């Protein structure tokens, strides 16, 4: 039975409801993205913007070694952060999913997420305190007698950026992997064991392949924002750990060269998109080849 007035013109009602968020995204996301793309083809002379279309910014971005170096470094650092974060996070997600009793799982997830509800800026700053020359880590290690001289390779370089970001993005890696592990039908593992596989082989041939969607989600969730991070390279990176976001900020707010900043932003966006798509594509092919 169809109720009168209920279920009629669903399309119209759906459109009315979706209109506010869609319009908001159109005005504040689509228009700005088009604008930044347009800006990248313009040029700026002190405070006046020259609207003649030009490829000058892109030529400069490709020929000036500094830009290429910053972009390459951003990709490498983001890659290292992603690898570290996901590899460190997997055992935790596995532990909580497989070894923690069901009624304690949400407590563990709660404990894992709590440190991340504190100010991101203060957390990054505290890593600077931990990793510094007279920092917590060095003074502890010297106090215990493990080292004689403070370690200097852990602050004001790319290593510090990787350590700090691996901390900052930990829950974003743990949660998707945990969710995909939770979805695994435990009877599959029993079946594998019954058929004579040992623990390690069961893990490699059953658990790990089934956890792939979570690992893929974790990889993308960590990689994409990391490549555009501004705070961490600025606070703990030193001159050798700066990334592309720092240069975009400099172009916009210090050098008053918005078109060049826009160009770098467009290039960064393009690189993120290409790497993510290639990653998803390779993963699909790998999954297909397996089945």
């Amino acid at each position, binding site marked *: 039975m169809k*109720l009168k007035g*209920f279920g009629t013109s*669903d399309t119209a009602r759906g*459109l009315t*409801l*979706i*209109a*506010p*968020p*869609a319009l*908001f*995204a159109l005005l*504040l*996301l689509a228009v*700005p993205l088009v*604008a*930044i793309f347009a800006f990248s083809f313009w040029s700026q002379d002190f405070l006046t913007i020259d609207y003649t279309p030009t490829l000058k910014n892109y030529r400069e971005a490709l020929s000036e070694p500094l830009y290429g170096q910053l972009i390459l470094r951003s990709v490498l650092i983001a890659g290292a952060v992603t690898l570290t974060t996901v590899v460190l996070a997997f*055992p*935790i997600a596995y*532990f*909580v999913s*497989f*070894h923690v009793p069901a009624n304690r*799982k*949400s407590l563990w*997830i*709660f404990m*894992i*997420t*709590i440190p991340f*509800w*504190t*100010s*991101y*800026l*203060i*957390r990054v*700053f*505290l890593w600077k305190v*931990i990793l510094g020359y007279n920092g*917590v880590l060095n*003074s502890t290690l010297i106090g215990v007698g493990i080292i004689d001289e403070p370690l200097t390779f852990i602050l004001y370089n790319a290593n510090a950026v990787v350590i700090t970001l691996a*901390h900052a993005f*930990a829950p974003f890696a743990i*949660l998707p992997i*945990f*969710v995909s592990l939770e979805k695994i039908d435990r009877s599959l593992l029993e079946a594998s064991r019954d058929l004579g596989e040992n623990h390690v082989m069961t893990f490699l041939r059953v658990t790990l392949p089934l956890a792939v969607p979570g690992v893929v989600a974790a990889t*993308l969730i960590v990689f994409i*924002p990391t490549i*555009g991070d501004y705070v961490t390279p600025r*606070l703990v990176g030193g001159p050798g750990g700066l990334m592309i*976001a720092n240069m*975009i900020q400099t172009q916009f*707010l210090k050098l008053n060269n*918005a078109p060049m900043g826009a160009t770098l*932003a467009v290039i*960064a*966006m393009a690189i*993120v998109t290409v790497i*993510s798509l290639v990653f998803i594509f390779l993963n699909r092919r790998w999954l297909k080849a397996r089945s």
Partner: protein
Amino acid sequence: MTGRGGWLRGYAVLYLLFLYAPIILLPIFAFNDSTIIAFPLSGFTTKWFTEIPNTPALVRSVQTSLIVAVTTAVLSTLLGICAARAGARYSFPFKTPVMGFIMLPLVLPEIIVAVSMLVVLMALDLPLGSWTVVLGHTLICTPFCIAILNSAFGNLDVSLEEAAFDLGESRWSTFRLITLPLVMPGIISALLISFTISLDEFIIAFFLTGTEPTLPVYLWGQLRFPQKIPVVMALGTILVALSVVLLTIAEIARRRGIARAGGKDTGGFL
């Protein structure tokens, strides 16, 4: 399965130590009687805490941040309700691309969102201010609200609404009396999450804030002055304590909600 987790448990404890390392240091330095943030500690003091209310710029930035965060939370939750309801209940042309586009800020580095909005505001010659920060924050918070509200609206039994409608309620009173109470836990989570994201967001606020900085933008400026750091630590300690209390309340509310609905607890509120 348990029992074999020996080395994994050890790893888990070490990992938690890594996660909590900065948070443990925060109160230590907040109560330390020295402007140098390093060991050894020099004595106990509460003066950094009493300095907070006596720093007018800090108090103003907290007020600005609270206004921005509350406005953002309400706006993005309202937009999230519209989108999640439309997505769960109705079909309309171009549904997948439209929904995908609204969710796009989730996979854009925040600096891109920040500079592209800045470019438009510059081109239109509009003044920067708290309202521009609110717009930017609402843009990045709405996808989180939709993700949370999707499950709330998705679990809703349509026959309950039909029954109310059948019994003579209007469309609006059906929504108010039946739908709203059922999705309320989702709405509260969405409000809390977007409030927290906005309160902590730095890069968009850094680009779009005008003369009234939000708290993270103010803190960013203070980090350059060593003598200001202990006050920042004290403030950070208060914020940690507050968010732990808020999150514990949210978690308890969520568990009560699940227990009331007769469901099984399957994970965190994220």
